[in-house]
C-alpha cells in the first residue's frame, strides 16, 4: 500500500498533484502520464543527456530519477522554455548555426544550455565545453552546437530573457 505515493510538484510553472507508483521514473511520468513528449529517452543510463530536465534549475537525467523524488520541487522541460509564439533565443541560435540535424538530442542540449547560461551568462569556450561534454550528439560533430552557444555567450541580455 505504500507502493503508491501522492506527490505535488511544479511542471513548467503548472501545479501538478498526482499519485505515482514508487518505481516510476520521472521521464515516464512526464512523457506517458503528463503527455509532454519533448523529453527524449536514449541511453537510459545517464550518459547521453537526451532526457535532461531541470530540477530546481539544475540539470538532471529524468531517465534515472524517481518520480517520487520531485515531490515539492520544480521541474522544467523543453516545453517550459519554449515560448508559445515561437522559439527561445537558445533554440533560435541552434537553428541559425545549424546546431541540430535529426533533433533527437536537441531538447537535452537546450535544457543544459538553459542551465549553463542561467548560472554563467557569459561562459568562456572552456566553460561551454566542460558543461556540455555530457550531452551526446551523433549528427553535428558538436562544432555547430558549440558555435550556437558561443554566439549566446557573447550576447548581452536581461536576466529573464533567457
Amino acid at each position, binding site marked *: 500500500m505504500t507502493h503508491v505515493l501522492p506527490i505535488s510538484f511544479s511542471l513548467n510553472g503548472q501545479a501538478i498533484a498526482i499519485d505515482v507508483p514508487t518505481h516510476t521514473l520521472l521521464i515516464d511520468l512526464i512523457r506517458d502520464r503528463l503527455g509532454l513528449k519533448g523529453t527524449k529517452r536514449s541511453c*537510459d543510463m545517464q550518459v547521453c543527456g537526451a532526457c535532461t530536465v531541470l*530540477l530546481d534549475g539544475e*540539470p538532471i537525467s529524468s531517465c534515472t530519477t524517481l518520480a517520487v523524488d520531485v515531490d515539492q520541487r520544480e521541474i522544467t522541460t523543453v516545453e517550459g522554455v519554449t515560448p508559445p509564439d515561437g522559439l527561445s533565443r537558445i533554440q533560435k541560435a541552434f537553428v541559425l548555426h545549424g546546431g541540430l540535424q535529426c533533433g533527437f538530442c536537441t531538447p537535452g542540449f537546450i535544457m543544459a544550455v538553459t542551465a549553463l547560461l542561467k548560472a554563467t551568462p557569459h561562459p568562456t569556450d572552456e566553460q561551454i565545453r566542460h558543461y556540455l561534454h555530457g550531452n551526446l550528439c551523433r549528427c553535428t560533430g558538436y562544432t555547430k552546437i558549440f558555435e550556437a552557444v558561443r554566439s549566446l555567450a557573447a550576447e548581452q541580455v536581461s536576466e529573464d530573457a533567457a
Partner: protein
Amino acid sequence: MLPSPFEFERPSTITDAVRAFGDSGDGMFYSGGTELLLAMKLRVIHTDRLIDIKSILGLDRIALTDANDIEIGARCTHNKIARDPVIRQYVPALSSLCANVANIRVRSVGTIGGNLCFGEPHADPPTMLAALDARLVLQGASGTRLVHVDDFIKSELETVREPDELLTVIVFPRPTGPVTYRRFKHGERPSVNVAMVWSMDAAASTITSARVRVGALGSRPQPLKGVEDALRGLSVAEVRPAIEAVLPTALDELEVNEDRHGAADYKRHLARVLLLRNADEAIAAGWSA
C-alpha cells in the same frame, strides 16, 4: 519504469533511517541514485525498500573543525563539494575533482558517500580520499565506527559497510602540502587515476610524509609504497629523480586488472605518466608555498 515497486521512506534523522532499515534486511539507503537506480534498471540489484536520506538535516554539511579536520557530509553532491568555499580554500584539488566527475547531471544529484559505498573501481573520489587518509563514520543499529578509506573498499563493488550501516561523514586532516590528482579517461569513468598528498614541514621545503594512491588500475585504490618511502624526508628539489628511480618497481608490485580500459602494461604506463605530472605540479606548488 523500474522492474518492481518498493516501499519508499523519508526519515528525517539518522536514528530513524537506521530504524527504517529495521528487520526487513532488504532495505537500501538511497540519495542521488546515480549508481543504484542504474543497477536496479539492469536488475542486478533488487530491493523491497528504499530509505531516502535526503531529508536528514546535517548530512550535507562541510566544515573545517577546531581539530583542523575537514568534514564532508556523506550526502553532499559532487556539485556542492566542487563549489564549497572551505573545500576550494583548503583542498582545491578535491573541488576540481568533484567538478569533473562524470557529467553535469550526475554532479547535480550524485553524492560522494554513494560513490564510496558503491565501490566502483573506475571512480574519481575514492583514490583521492584514500590519499588524503580519510576516515568514514558508519552508523548502524549496533553503534558507530570509524573506517579508513583504505580499509573500506574491499574489492570491486564490495565494501566493509554492513547493509544497515549508514555512511554519515567523511573526515580527513587539513592538508599541509600540495594535493594533486590526475586521471585518464575516454568516457564517463577514469581508466586510471593517481592522487598524491604531501605533508610538508613548517618551512614548506621538506616532505615529512607522502601518500600516493593509484586507482582504477586494480579493484581498489592501491598505495604506491615504494614512492611513498622514497619521498619521505626529501626536499622538493630532489623529488623527480627519486620518483623516477623507484617508480618502475613500485608499479610492478601493483595489482592490475586488464579490462576494457586497457592491458596491464598500458594501464601501468598511464599511472606512471599521471604520477610524474602530479609530481611536477606538486613541485611547482612546493616552491611557491
